[in-house]
Every structure is written in structure tokens, then in C-alpha cells.
């Protein structure tokens, strides 16, 4: 509070006091002017000065201003002393406002503000009753009835004492419960208050309680006896004026407690057990609820003496924290009752006195806290921990006994070499010595057989003074899990590879099979097709084709409708069917395809139809060719028969007929013309010789006997001997299957005949060889060439004969460069 404000308040107070005294002196209706003057001055200034003291100590607390307001509002009542009607009436009506302000201040004590709805309600009732209630009553109250000397009521509307009685009774009916409620609130606060605050509250509540009691009594009494009430109001005034004094008294009791600090310093000087510090501080502060919170730097938080975390109080609760620092660093916090806020100097003095002791205790708490954390960490460790000296003697261990190589009681004090296998012990002790000598962390792995089970451990050895700490972590399970994981991973990879191989295999099969594969929807729409079908159709599998009806893309136009119908039928009947159709390529090329449909489901379970086709165009062609070839063979056979018949008839038969006639003629002439007969017989003999020759020739044409008897080589030699051209021969000694020899013979025979007839050749070469199970016959000449096997029936017949044996006949005969006929016939 600024001094100016205080001066203003005092000035205003003095002005109002002077005014009140002037009114009093001049009053023509005040009978006890001296007493009233003293009472006003005492009550008002008691509050004004008390309020100013409180305001000065706690500028942010509204309790001080409230007390000042009580003191100032007291002077409103002084207007009643005026001899003029309006000021008198105003004083008469609003003179009690100070009581409402007093109740307000009392209920706001010691914090300066109202806390609960109940308290608000009580204060509101008080203000209402002493302003509106009082004003309303004045409309019907002719004051001159009770005070004939008093000026007339300026607000009087109608003199209605009954109405005034009803209004007053109503106000009392509301006021009494409000007062009782106030008592309840004070009682509750008292019960909740700590010892130091009770020390403050007690005188205030005592005087206020007495004042309120007397006020209530005066109000009740006023209904019956104006005189008695009037006397009581004086008593109330005195009690009322004592309230601020009570506040000062409570305040002083806080200040007196400071004497405890000296005692505290004495107590702190003596050694004390944990907790004694808190008790000493609680005594010094007069707050048995005091708690100590120690600052733990590691966690940057507060903890109690047992290391439990503590949250510092915040806001407007019952507790308040006062920080204790030392050398600029937080040490602890004193958590004390909010009432000590009234005497922060005391708290700070106590805190300063105890800072060193608190710092010491804080360190202990922090240490204990750190130890607890490390212990918790160690307890949470799954690892084995050994403390060992440089000779490998076990000093201490932590861990499960079943993980130890020996029972715990045997372990401590024993040497590693007494417990562990020699090599492991060597390894450990070597590691311990290295760790101690170098300060480095030594790591290693070792295997121990515990209860017959080999177990793998990982060791970390750390120097600790002139000892070492060995941390052993088992990784057998981890190893197994790792191995299992790796195995599963490998298996998974293998399965993945297998699936990939399978997929690649299927893809390769699908793409390399000569079968035409096309996957369609049950409605016949193309989903995809394979490479063979791409080749056959001349269309790439892709978006241009996919989604079109299978028949519209692949089937010849005149058969599309039919195929669409049969596909619909097979889908309706389960999906399996076999068909033969004419398929058409993008370039119009037609292929005969036999195809089937198979129902299946794709990888998403959708019904599909697999169309699997086989291009049989070539097969058909071969079949047709075979049919034609057979027909030609038959025809050739018939022609041969006719030729034979003709040859027999025209040749040998004619000669034999002539011979017969000659012999008959000779017979008729033998007696009378013997010379002519002899002549005829001579002719007959010639005729017979020629007939025989023709028969032989004929028989050779049917099947040369030498071929059957002596084989292909001899037969070809015979052929060549009858050929009028020089022939170079290369023959095979081995016999070949009879049909092969016959075919080869006729090829050579026909070729030589053709050469003799057309080739105009000067030399011929015939070779017969066996190559890779095939008989290979070649007849080459140096003639005019230009031979065409398609034209001459002779060669055509030979082609048929050779192809009937699965062989082939090739003719190369470029014009002017001779002719080469080559035949290859398989011999098996």
C-alpha cells in the first residue's frame, strides 16, 4: 500500500469523524451524544487503523481494505444525527451497511476473498437485508412514533407499523439462519485450521463470535423492547470495535513465534536421527504439518526423506512451499501451512538457519535415492554379476543359483580354478587381470556345462578398484532362437526360391509350349494368352486385345457365331469341351486348330476358362498329302500292271503267237516244200529267242532277281552295265532292309533311265552310303539340268515310294548345271 493511500484513508476517516461529531453536537434528537460519539470514533478507527496495518502487511490481500471499509461505513449511521429529514432518513435506512461489510470481512478472513457458495450467499443476504430490506421497511415506518423529536421520514409512503413488523420479521427469519450458517463456516474453518493459524483465528473468531451473538440478541430483543435493544447495541459496538484488536493480537502471536528460531539453531547443532530435523523445524515454525522435500539433482525433482517423489503444492491450497537454496542451488522445500504466509520472514529465517542441515540431509536422501535406483537396476538385470579379485576369487555374486557352476555357499571365497574348467578359469582370470591392469572393459565368450546342459555365456569384465566385476550373460537361448530364426529364414527363402522356380518353370512351359493357351472369363473375354498364340495370331498380348471376345479375335469370321454358341454351352455345362475350328491371324493367315476348354479358378478364386489349342494345319496337310501319296502309289501300281500286261501282250505273247503260226506253216510245208519249211523253222527259232529275251527284260522290270539274291550293290552294277554312259560307282557292301534296297534300286534305275533319255550327260556318278542309320543314295550327272520332280510321273512315283518309308527325295537341277538326285531313307 502506498503511503498516499494510507494518508488518504486517514484523511477521509478524520473528515468523516469530524462530520459525525458536528452532526452529533448539533443534533436535537440525540440524548447520549457523548457516548455515541465515543462509540463511533472507537469502532470506526479501530477498523480503519487495523485495516491499514493488515493492508500494509499484505498489499495483495483484500482483508485490509475490507477492514478499512467497515471503519468508513460506520460513519453512514452518523447521518441519523442530522436534524434534516433526508440525511436523517438516509442514516436511519443505510446506517447498518457497515455490519454487512463486517460480515463480509469476517468471512473473507484471513485470505481476503470469499470461497464457497454458502459464504457468498451469507454475505449477499447481509448486504440485501441492510440495504434493500431496510429501504423497503422505511416506506411504511413513521419514525416519529418512536422518536417524536426526530425529523420526519423522508421515504415514508404510509404509516403501517404492521407492515414494518412483517418486513422486520421476514428479515430476521432470513438473518438468523444466515448468522447460524456463518457460525457453521467459522467452526468448519477452525476444525480445518493448523495450530499456527488457530493462533491467529482464535482472538478474531472469539471477538467476532461475541459481536455476532450480541448483534443477533440485539436484533431479537429489538422486536420486543426498543430500550433493551438500544442498550445492547452499545455493548455490540464495544465488542465490534475489539475485533480489529483481536486481529492484531493474532498477528502478534505469529511474531512471537520467531523466538523459536534461536531454539532451532541450538537443536540443529546437535546430532540428530533422520526425521528429527523435520520435527525441529516443525516446532520452530509452530506447524506440526510441516513436510520437507529434498531436491534430487539427478531426477530434477523433489523427494521425501525415504526417497519417494514429492510434488510441490501450487495454487491456493492449504499448503505452501518455501524454497531453501544454498550457494544459488536448490536444496529443499519446506511445505508448510498457508497461514505461515503471514509470517514469511519467520519461515525464511528458519529456512536459512536450517539450510546447511537440510543440504546434508538432502545429500543423504539423494545418495539413498541413487542407491535405490542402482539397486533396482541391478535387480532388474537378468545377468549374473560377480565381484572377483585379481586371483579369480569369488567375493560376491548376484544372480540365480541355478545359473552358477557351484552352490552359492561353495562359490564365495573359492577360486575360479576350483570351480570352473581349467581353460574357462584361465580365460576369466586372465581377463580379470587385464581389466584391472589396463582399466579396459574385457569381453569374451565361454561355454559351461551346467547339469549336463552346455550353456553359452558372454562375459564383460570391468575394473572396480583393485577388484573386477564380471557380468555374465547367457546367450544359449538367444543362440538357439537365432539359429531357429536363421533356419526358418533359410527355409522361407528356399520355399520362396522353389516358388519362383515353379513360377518360372510354369511361365517357361506356358511360353514355350507349342500349345496355344488363352485364359478367358466365363463370358469368353480374353484375360491373357501365351507366346505361341501370339506367334500364331500375330497379335501381342496386351490392352489392345484383352477384354475382347476370344472368338472375335482368334476365330475365322464364318465360324465366330458357332464358337460363341459352343463356348456358352460348355460354360453352362461345366466348362469342358473339345472343338476344331479355323483360326485366323492378324494378317489373314488361317490355321486349323483343335482346342479344348477347361474350367479353373485364378489366384483370386475367380472362375476362368482355359482355352488350350493345337495348331493342326501341318498335320492336316500331311494327312492330305499322305492320302494323295497313297492314291498315287495305287495309281502307279495300276499303271505298272497295265504296262506289264501291255508288254506281255505286245512282246512275248505276240512272238509266241507268230512262232505258233510259223511252226504250223512249217509243218504244212515240211513234206512238199521242205526248203521253205526249214526256212520257216529258222525264223521260228529267232522268234523264240527274242520272245525269251523280252520275257527276261519284263521279269527284270517287275523285280530284278539279282536285287533279291545279290543285294543292292549287284543290282545297281547290273543296271549300270546296261547303261550306255560311263558311270562312276561307289557302293555299300552291307545289305539293307529289302524295302529300302528296292526303293533305292528303282531310284537309281529311274534316274539312269531319265539321264539316258533327257540329260545329254557325258558322265554319271552313283553313290550308295549308310549315314546315321540312313541309306543315302546319290545320282549325279553333268547334263543339262532343269529336271522337275513335280512334272514327271516317274520321279513323283519315286517320291511317294521313298516317303512311304519315311525317307525323303531331293532333286537339285539348276538349268545347265547337271542334276543331283539324293535320297535318304531311314533303315530302322
Amino acid at each position, binding site marked *: 500500500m502506498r503511503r498516499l493511500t494510507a494518508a488518504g484513508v486517514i484523511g477521509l476517516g478524520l473528515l468523516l469523524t469530524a462530520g459525525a461529531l458536528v452532526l452529533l453536537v448539533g443534533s436535537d434528537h440525540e440524548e447520549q451524544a457523548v457516548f455515541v460519539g465515543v462509540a463511533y470514533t472507537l469502532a470506526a478507527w479501530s477498523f480503519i487503523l487495523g485495516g491499514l496495518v493488515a493492508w500494509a502487511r499484505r498489499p495483495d490481500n483484500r482483508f485490509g481494505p475490507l477492514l478499512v471499509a467497515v471503519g468508513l461505513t460506520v460513519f453512514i449511521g452518523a447521518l441519523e444525527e442530522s436534524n434534516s429529514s433526508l440525511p436523517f432518513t438516509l442514516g436511519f435506512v443505510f446506517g447498518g451497511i457497515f455490519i454487512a461489510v463486517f460480515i463480509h470481512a469476517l468471512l473473507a478472513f484471513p485470505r481476503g476473498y470469499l470461497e464457497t457458495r454458502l459464504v457468498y450467499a451469507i454475505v449477499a443476504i447481509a448486504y440485501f437485508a441492510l440495504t434493500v430490506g431496510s429501504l423497503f421497511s422505511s416506506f411504511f415506518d413513521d419514525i416519529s412514533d418512536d422518536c417524536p423529536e426526530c425529523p420526519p421520514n423522508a421515504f415514508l409512503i404510509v404509516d403501517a407499523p404492521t407492515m414494518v413488523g412483517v418486513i422486520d420479521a421476514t428479515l430476521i427469519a432470513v438473518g438468523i439462519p444466515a448468522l447460524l450458517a456463518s457460525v457453521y463456516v467459522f467452526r468448519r474453518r477452525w476444525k480445518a485450521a493448523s495450530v499456527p493459524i488457530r493462533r491467529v483465528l482464535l482472538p478474531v473468531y472469539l471477538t467476532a463470535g461475541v459481536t455476532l451473538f450480541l448483534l443477533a440478541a440485539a436484533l431479537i430483543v429489538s422486536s420486543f423492547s426498543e430500550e433493551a435493544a438500544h442498550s445492547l447495541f452499545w455493548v455490540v459496538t464495544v465488542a465490534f470495535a475489539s475485533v480489529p484488536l483481536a486481529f492484531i493480537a493474532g498477528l502478534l502471536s505469529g511474531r512471537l513465534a520467531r523466538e523459536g528460531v534461536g531454539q532451532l539453531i541450538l537443536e540443529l547443532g546437535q546430532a540428530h536421527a533422520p526425521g528429527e530435523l523435520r520435527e525441529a523445524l516443525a516446532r520452530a515454525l509452530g506447524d506440526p504439518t510441516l513436510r520437507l522435500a529434498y531436491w534430487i539433482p539427478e531426477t530434477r525433482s523433489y523427494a521425501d526423506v525415504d526417497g519417494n517423489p514429492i510434488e510441490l503444492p501450487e495454487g491456493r491450497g492449504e499448503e505452501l512451499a518455501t524454497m531453501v537454496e544454498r550457494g544459488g542451488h536448490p536444496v529443499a522445500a519446506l511445505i508448510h501451512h498457508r497461514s505461515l504466509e503471514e509470517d514469511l520472514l519467520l519461515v525464511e529465517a528458519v529456512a536459512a538457519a536450517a539450510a546447511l542441515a537440510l543440504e546434508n540431509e538432502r545429500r543423504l536422501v539423494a545418495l539413498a535415492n541413487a542407491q535405490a535406483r542402482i539397486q533396482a537396476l541391478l535387480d532388474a538385470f537378468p545377468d549374473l554379476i560377480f565381484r572377483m579379485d585379481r586371483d579369480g576369487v569369488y567375493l560376491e555374486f548376484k544372480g540365480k543359483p541355478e545359473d552358477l557352476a557351484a552352490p552359492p555357499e561353495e562359490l564365495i571365497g573359492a577360486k575360479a580354478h576350483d570351480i570352473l574348467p581349467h581353460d574357462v578359469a584361465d580365460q576369466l582370470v586372465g581377463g580379470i587381470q587385464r581389466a584391472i591392469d589396463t582399466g579396459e572393459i574385457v569381453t569374451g565368450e565361454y561355454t559351461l556345462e551346467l547339469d549336463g546342459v552346455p550353456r553359452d555365456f558372454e562375459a564383460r569384465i570391468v575394473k572396480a578398484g583393485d577388484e573386477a566385476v564380471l557380468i555374465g550373460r547367457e546367450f544359449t537361448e538367444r543362440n538357439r532362437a537365432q539359429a531357429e530364426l536363421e533356419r526358418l529364414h533359410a527355409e522361407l527363402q528356399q520355399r520362396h526360391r522353389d516358388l519362383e522356380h515353379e513360377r518360372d518353370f510354369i511361365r517357361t512351359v506356358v511360353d514355350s509350349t507349342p500349345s496355344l493357351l488363352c485364359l478367358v472369363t466365363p463370358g469368353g473375354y480374353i484375360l491373357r494368352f501365351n507366346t505361341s498364340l501370339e506367334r500364331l495370331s500375330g497379335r501381342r498380348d496386351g490392352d489392345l486385345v484383352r477384354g475382347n471376345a476370344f472368338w472375335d479375335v482368334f476365330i475365322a469370321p464364318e465360324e465366330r457365331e458357332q464358337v460363341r454358341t459352343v463356348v456358352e454351352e460348355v460354360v453352362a455345362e461345366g466348362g469342358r469341351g473339345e472343338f476344331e475350328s479355323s483360326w485366323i491371324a492378324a494378317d489373314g493367315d488361317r490355321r486349323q486348330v483343335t482346342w479344348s476348354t477347361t474350367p479353373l479358378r485364378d489366384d483370386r478364386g475367380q472362375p476362368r476358362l482355359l482355352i488350350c489349342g493345337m495348331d493342326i494345319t501341318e498335320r492336316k496337310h500331311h494327312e492330305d498329302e499322305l492320302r494323295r501319296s497313297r492314291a498315287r502309289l495305287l495309281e502307279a501300281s495300276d499303271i505298272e500292271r497295265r504296262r506289264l500286261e501291255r508288254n506281255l*501282250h*505286245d512282246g512275248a*505273247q*505276240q*512272238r*509266241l*503267237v*507268230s512262232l*505258233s*503260226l*510259223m511252226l*504250223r*506253216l512249217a509243218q*504244212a*510245208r515240211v513234206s512238199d516244200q521242205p526248203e521253205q519249211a526249214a526256212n520257216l523253222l529258222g525264223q521260228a527259232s529267232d*522268234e523264240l529267242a527274242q520272245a525269251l529275251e523280252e520275257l527276261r527284260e519284263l521279269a527284270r522290270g517287275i523285280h530284278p532277281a539279282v536285287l533279291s539274291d545279290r543285294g543292292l550293290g549287284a543290282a545297281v552294277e547290273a543296271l549300270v552295265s546296261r547303261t550306255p554312259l560311263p558311270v562312276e560307282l561307289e557302293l555299300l557292301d552291307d545289305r539293307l532292309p529289302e524295302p529300302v534296297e528296292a526303293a533305292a534300286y528303282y531310284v537309281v534305275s529311274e534316274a539312269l533311265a531319265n539321264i539316258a533319255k533327257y540329260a545329254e550327260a557325258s558322265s554319271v556318278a552313283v553313290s550308295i552310303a549308310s549315314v546315321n542309320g540312313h541309306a543315302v543314295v546319290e545320282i549325279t550327272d553333268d547334263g543339262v539340268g532343269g529336271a522337275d520332280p513335280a512334272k514327271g510321273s516317274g520321279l513323283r512315283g519315286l517320291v511317294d515310294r521313298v516317303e512311304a518309308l519315311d525317307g525323303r527325295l531331293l532333286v537339285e537341277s539348276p538349268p545347265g548345271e547337271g542334276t543331283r538326285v539324293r535320297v535318304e531313307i531311314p533303315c530302322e
Partner: protein
Amino acid sequence: MAYRILIVDDHPSFRATVRTLLVADGFEVVGEAADGRSALAAVKSLEPDLVLLDVQLPDMDGFAVANELLRQNGTGPTVVLTSSHDESDFGPIVTRCGAAAFVPKGELSGGALRAVLR
């Protein structure tokens, strides 16, 4: 007076032998023909009494020639068919074609032809 005969056969050696045989037996051989068409022309120009006609000729067979002779001229020469085959090889066509007789080549003689003419 000797019968006038036309020999029709495509084999010259046969024609020569038959001519010798028939002349020796007192027949007059007025001509020879090697095929059907020249046979028909020779009949028209030579007007033989008898045509000795081979069944197998290069252009048309003996039955066709006989038929033609019969159709052209109702009072034509007597046609005697001959062949190195037997008559049974040909069947009823031998009698239907209008020929007077069939004599196998091996049995030809003046006597055999006279028997037909009588």
C-alpha cells in the same frame, strides 16, 4: 475265186506271218492296217470279203471297229476278231459287236476262216 482278206493288227511280224499262212492256204490278202482308223479307210477303199481284226489296237479296239463297219455298211465284209487272249477273256461283247466269229491267234489257219465264211 479266192477270198479277199484285209489284215488289221499293230504288230508287223504277226501281219507278215498271217499273210504267208493265208496266201499258202489260197486266200488273196488285199491289204494290211496297223490301227482302227486306217482299217476303216482300207475297208472303204479295198472292199475286202473278210477283215481279220485284232481286238487290241492302238487307237480304238477291234470291237469298236467292228461296230463301226456294221453301222456304216449293212452289207460290209465279214469281220473275224482275233486276239492272243481267249474269247472268254472278253465275254459277250464278242458276239454283240457284230463280228462273225472270234478266232484265237494261235488257231488261225485258212481252214478256220473258210469255216466261218461257209
